[in-house]
């Protein structure tokens, strides 16, 4: 019996992420050819002395973009969709980082380990975490870091699931924005995304 061929379409795109001086919690929103720090942020994309903090579960793995224009000590550390890092931009000027790659599609899963982790939407869309498919469990806590560009007004917005709902209400995430998540129990964030959605 003849079968109808099925074609898969890979969408490639780009995302511009504007980083203010100081700290920002960001993700790599696309599947890049090179998901390492060198591939994502090297080559002069960020200024010298930029620092990337990747949370390990107990602390941070810290890499600095040195005046040799390499990330040290671990330039091959990766940031993939669904994860996130803190990045600290030195100086006083905004920096725009362009992420290029394939849009993740199909059934997508982000693990939410018990305790703290930095996570992000695998689908490069803006919206609240709820709108992006994250279902919080009772006593889960969501930490969104907002860098307003002014140190005195930058800080965390915190929401906790109590009595079955987030309180205070969740803020909207930008494309390429990550957040800290403290899960009361281990879980997963699942979403199926197709380009035509």
């Amino acid at each position, binding site marked *: 019996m003849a079968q109808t061929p099925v074609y898969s379409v890979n969408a490639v795109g780009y995302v511009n992420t504007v980083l203010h001086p*100081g*700290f920002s919690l960001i993700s790599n929103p696309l599947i890049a050819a090179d998901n390492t720090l060198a591939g994502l942020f090297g080559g002069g994309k960020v200024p010298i002395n930029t620092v990337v*903090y990747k949370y390990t579960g107990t602390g*941070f793995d810290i890499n600095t973009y040195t005046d040799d224009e390499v990330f040290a000590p671990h330039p091959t550390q990766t940031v993939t969709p669904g994860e996130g890092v*803190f990045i*600290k931009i030195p100086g006083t000027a905004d920096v725009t980082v362009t992420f290029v790659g394939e849009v993740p599609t199909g059934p997508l899963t982000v693990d939410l380990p018990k305790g*703290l982790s930095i996570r992000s939407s695998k689908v490069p869309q803006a919206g609240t975490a709820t709108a992006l498919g994250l279902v919080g469990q009772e*006593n889960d*806590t969501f*930490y969104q*870091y907002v860098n307003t560009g002014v*140190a*005195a007004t*930058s*800080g*965390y*917005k*915190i*929401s*906790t699931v*109590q*009595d079955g709902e987030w*309180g*205070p209400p969740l803020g909207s995430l930008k494309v390429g924005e990550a957040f*800290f998540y*403290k899960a*009361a129990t281990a879980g997963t964030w699942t979403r199926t995304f197709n380009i035509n959605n």
Partner: protein
Amino acid sequence: MKKALVAIAALLVSVSAYAQGQVNFNTHVTTDTPPVDARVLNPDGTPVGAGGLGQLFIKNGSSYTALVADPLVNGGASAFRTSAAGLGYINAGGATAPLPAGSYSIVLRAWTGASTYDAATFRGESAPVTVALTEAPAIPNDLIGLQGFTLVPEPTTLALGAVGLGALLIRRRKA
């Protein structure tokens, strides 16, 4: 003197230009060890609910420095929860101090009957607890060690009540 005032003003400006310490203003976190359980009660023993307000302060002797919760409503104070399980508790998210990260003595002040603590008819304050306020990349700590308390009538309310009772007794004697 003028030079000293200018220097102090410059210092205040430079302090406010930097990031400010934060804490997670949630008085009921059951997943912490030990749990945060700082329930606030009305004088009649019922938990504070609708209409009740609370705010965190850094207490230094008799001086109080307010932490502002996000979102900024009620002049920086936060409303008590009104669900059945949440009565007596506040969950206001991140609260920010106008001071850098560090360990501070923190109290929770709560009140009813007015928009500010000083004007309230019923109010109270927790025992102080030492909390480390944090800045990025560290996430804000929870209020481990914060204890609940019961609101009491503000002294003026008590005095007016006593005057009223006295007047009533005098009337009855005359009658």
